[in-house]
């Protein structure tokens, strides 16, 4: 029976209330220890063949007839006002079919009303001035040179501390820093009495930690192809949230959402940056409508790295106090987050300080600061990677000062329940994670030094732990169709951004239906076909969409059994289905396939409906521990990660093979952020210097270490009825801290600023010999 309920949903540290439709009672949770046919078995990607033959069509690959290509004139200044803009030269160039700018575009509010689709005031270098659609990309780019713009250059701020300072020029209509509803600067959290806590502390570790602005560099850039047919527009978009794009485009164009179809069948990575809707998603349909032809508007790599989001730099002042016997008594963390020109939220940097350990006295203060740079966005566990780096570095320092074993020290400060809400967690297997990680690390023996270049290498080991959300919640819906040819289609408006959702959730459907995996076809990424599913972010897709798929499959199976009951002449509840064949329970003979049964009833198509039920009131968290072995060359400051052991509690594992890949990927991105990734900006000109894949370094295959990854794999039956939590983000979170702590173990220097480049390490290793070096900060 359909009803409506309210429930709280937490995504990446931010909680909101949802009003959702519950279609009927949910099935009982798959209990611990249950025997499965599909779930928990390693499966190859169901779309593997398309991915290795080039047959997987990404939005970038779409090429409708008559396609035009868009190129963009961008503001060359970090802060400027357009005084005069003349696009007539571009319009006259043969091959140019349309030009859109503030001169002819209607006023469409953008950035929460702080700006417009084409605004006169531009707040970062790279912001859109005019967009040209032409027969080919070269012509479109030629045309940009014929556009005349006169700018009034305005004061710009790119340094987060200067932008937050009193008296700084105002660069945003709502001010340079985030304020709460009452107009108070920043976000404050407090429990207990920190001052008293520090008085009780025997040992206090204090320092300023910083993390760089990291660029997602999804391999498929942001962009779309837009084409109109009558009054309906189709947008092939590289997005983590097709329904988000649909809503934004419909409101911008003032047309009903049903007139906007967003398709995203394959996505070349997102890592959080594609949860937002950027301007191109609206501009491409506008240009397409203007020219009467389809328009492809893909960012190039440089543009991608200027404006599609980033993990904003943080500066964290952290103080942690413990008693001599190793009890944490106070944590205080003040954080500045660079949120770029139009950021409206700050990442949950203080989350680990508030929750990871038992500590009676905690105070955190987080200030989001606007700068004249591209806005930040979610980036794989936003905030927690940064916050965990600082907190776990300090924990390591405390261990050293107190002479405690790192794991014992962490176990001693284990938090039984959630100290923020005062409630118990739905599940917490952090102790199991510590134990398994420690055992796997010990079993692996000393790491191999093979492949290291010549050098004076010192080896060290370090660890970090993590807490993260990843529970998801409603609304999320799915359909399961049983066709008269015996095939199964799961239809759902979710996205597979590379995580293997198609495969894992096909396993859920196959499991519930009792069919082999290869008859299931998972259709996703199309707003016109799939029922609503949330954005693919926050490690929420499995725990949000998975239960909906299971319910839809269960519904379809029930209908099938009711149909089969006519032919078997027994009540439906006496029938069973296995390997796609229905029999009377307990019998092998007389089995009939799904196709066989359905083709006898007029090629009937069964449609099962599924939904994600409301969340439990208890907070849900994922947990984990990682141990890193590194080698550091004392003479050249080079660091190589030799091995990472990662164990996380992410609930029930659906597809171990896919999960391992997620873990590998998270670790690799963590290595990048720790050792090499750093957006560089010239402070005088406000321009980004390394918005490309040459100067902005991401790990290569040669940087990839040995990785031993495991899930605790105990279902969280309180979380949802499939027992799974999210797994995409947890493995990046403790990686920087584990590596930094391993570097300390290897060479005895504490690096508090990421990335740990040869420059940073040498400045820290040999500052006494380098009178000219920068202050190392540690």
């Amino acid at each position, binding site marked *: 029976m359909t009803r409506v309920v309210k429930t709280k949903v937490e995504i990446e540290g931010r909680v909101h209330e949802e009003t959702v439709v519950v279609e009927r009672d949910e099935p009982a949770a798959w209990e611990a220890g249950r025997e499965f046919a599909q779930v928990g078995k390693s499966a190859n990607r169901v779309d593997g063949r398309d991915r290795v033959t080039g047959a997987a069509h990404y939005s970038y690959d779409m090429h409708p007839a008559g396609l035009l290509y868009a190129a963009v004139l961008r503001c060359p200044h970090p802060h400027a006002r357009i005084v005069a803009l003349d696009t007539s030269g571009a319009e006259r160039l043969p091959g140019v079919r349309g030009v859109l700018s503030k001169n002819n575009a209607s006023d469409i509010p953008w950035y929460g009303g702080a700006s417009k689709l084409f605004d006169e005031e531009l707040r970062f270098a790279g912001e859109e001035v005019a967009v040209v659609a032409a027969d080919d990309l070269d012509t479109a780019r030629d045309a940009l040179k014929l556009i005349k713009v006169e700018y009034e250059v305005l004061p710009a701020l790119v340094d987060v501390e200067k932008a937050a300072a009193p008296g700084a020029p105002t660069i945003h209509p709502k001010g340079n820093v985030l304020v709460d509803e009452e107009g108070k600067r920043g976000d404050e959290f407090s429990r207990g009495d920190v001052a008293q806590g520090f008085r009780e502390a025997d040992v206090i570790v204090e320092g300023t930690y910083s993390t760089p602005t990291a660029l997602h560099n999804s391999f498929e850039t942001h962009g779309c192809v837009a084409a109109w047919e009558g009054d309906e527009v189709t947008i092939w978009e590289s997005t983590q949230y097709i329904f988000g794009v649909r809503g934004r485009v419909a409101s911008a164009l003032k047309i009903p959402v049903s007139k906007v179809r967003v398709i995203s069948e394959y996505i070349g990575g997102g890592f959080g940056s594609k949860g937002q809707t950027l301007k191109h998603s609206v501009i491409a349909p506008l240009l397409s409508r203007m020219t009467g032809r389809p328009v492809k508007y893909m960012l190039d790599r440089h543009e991608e790295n200027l404006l599609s989001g980033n993990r904003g730099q943080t500066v964290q002042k952290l103080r942690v106090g413990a008693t001599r016997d190793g009890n944490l008594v106070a944590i205080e963390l003040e954080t500045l987050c660079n949120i770029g020109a139009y950021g409206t939220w700050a990442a949950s940097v203080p989350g680990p300080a508030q929750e990871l350990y038992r500590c009676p006295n905690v105070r955190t203060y987080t200030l989001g600061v606007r700068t004249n740079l591209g806005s930040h966005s979610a980036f794989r566990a936003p905030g927690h990677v940064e916050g965990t780096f600082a907190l776990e570095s300090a924990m390591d320092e405390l261990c050293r000062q107190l002479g405690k074993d790192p794991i014992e020290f962490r176990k001693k400060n284990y938090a039984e329940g959630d100290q923020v809400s005062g409630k118990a967690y739905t599940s917490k297997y952090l102790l199991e994670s510590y134990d398994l990680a420690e055992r796997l690390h010990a079993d692996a023996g000393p790491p191999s030094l093979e492949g290291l270049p010549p050098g004076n290498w010192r080896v060290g080991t370090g660890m970090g732990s993590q807490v993260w959300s990843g529970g998801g919640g409603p609304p999320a819906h799915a359909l399961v169709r049983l066709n008269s040819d015996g095939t199964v289609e799961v239809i759902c408006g979710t996205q597979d951004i590379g995580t293997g959702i198609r495969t894992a959730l096909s396993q859920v459907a196959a499991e519930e239906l009792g069919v082999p995996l290869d008859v299931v076809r998972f259709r996703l990424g199309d707003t016109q076909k799939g029922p609503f599913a949330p954005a693919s972010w926050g490690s929420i897709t499995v725990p949000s969409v998975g239960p909906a798929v299971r319910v839809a499959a269960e519904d379809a199976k029930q209908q099938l059994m009711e149909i089969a009951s006519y032919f078997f002449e027994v009540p439906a509840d006496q029938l069973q289905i296995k390997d796609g064949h229905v029999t009377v329970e307990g019998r092998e003979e007389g089995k009939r396939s799904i196709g066989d049964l359905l083709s006898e009833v007029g090629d009937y198509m069964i449609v099962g409906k599924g939904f994600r039920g409301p969340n439990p009131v208890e907070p849900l968290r994922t947990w984990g521990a990682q141990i890193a072995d590194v080698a550091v060359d004392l003479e050249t400051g080079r660091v190589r990660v030799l091995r990472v052991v990662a164990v996380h509690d992410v609930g029930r594992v659906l597809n171990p093979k896919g999960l391992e890949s997620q873990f*590998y990927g998270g670790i690799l991105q963590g290595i990048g952020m720790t050792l090499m990734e750093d957006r560089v900006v010239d402070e005088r000109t406000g321009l980004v210097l390394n918005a490309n894949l040459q100067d902005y370094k991401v790990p290569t295959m040669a940087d990839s270490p040995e990785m031993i990854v495991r899930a605790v794999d105990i279902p969280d039956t309180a979380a949802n009825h499939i027992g799974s939590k999210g797994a995409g983000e947890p493995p990046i979170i403790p990686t920087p801290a584990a590596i930094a702590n391993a570097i300390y173990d290897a060479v005895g220097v504490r690096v508090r600023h990421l990335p740990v480049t040869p420059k940073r390490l040498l400045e820290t290793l040999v500052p006494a010999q380098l009178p000219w070096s920068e202050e190392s900060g540690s």
Partner: protein
Amino acid sequence: MRPTHDESDHTLVAPTTSRSIQLTVNGETYQATVPSRRTLLDLLRDQLALTGTKKVCDMGHCGACTILRDGKAVLSCLTLATACDGADIRTVEGLSAPGGALSPLQQAFIDADAFQCGFCTPGQLMSATALLAENPTPSREEIRAYMAGNLCRCGAYSGIVDAIERASQQG
């Protein structure tokens, strides 16, 4: 290529100079008229509808557009189409027949889950194909060195090394 001039008094260079070329792609002969500034990557993707080869950086930094030119792994984004008159090109679409059996390397990529988003995969496969042609039994270190020009932002490296190793053992 990124016009950020405050003002521009550019006059455009002479009209497009195009020429007709003939090249072999995956065993098929193609005739195409290409402007001199068109890259092989854009020719493949936009003119020949072979979109398996991906554009990621378009500057030679990432390896995603790797194809085989006369058997050598090269970057199609830094190759002018017009200079490919008479060239023999192989792309990911040519590793196996449509609907036919996958190459051992392709199958090994699936078995080892050697991709996540899959956008770098065509380039990875082409480099790996060249590697195994040059060195049918590479060590893991040799694989890591040879493949270092194919970046993968999802971090599927571990599976890629496994896949190439498996394929080499089968080949």
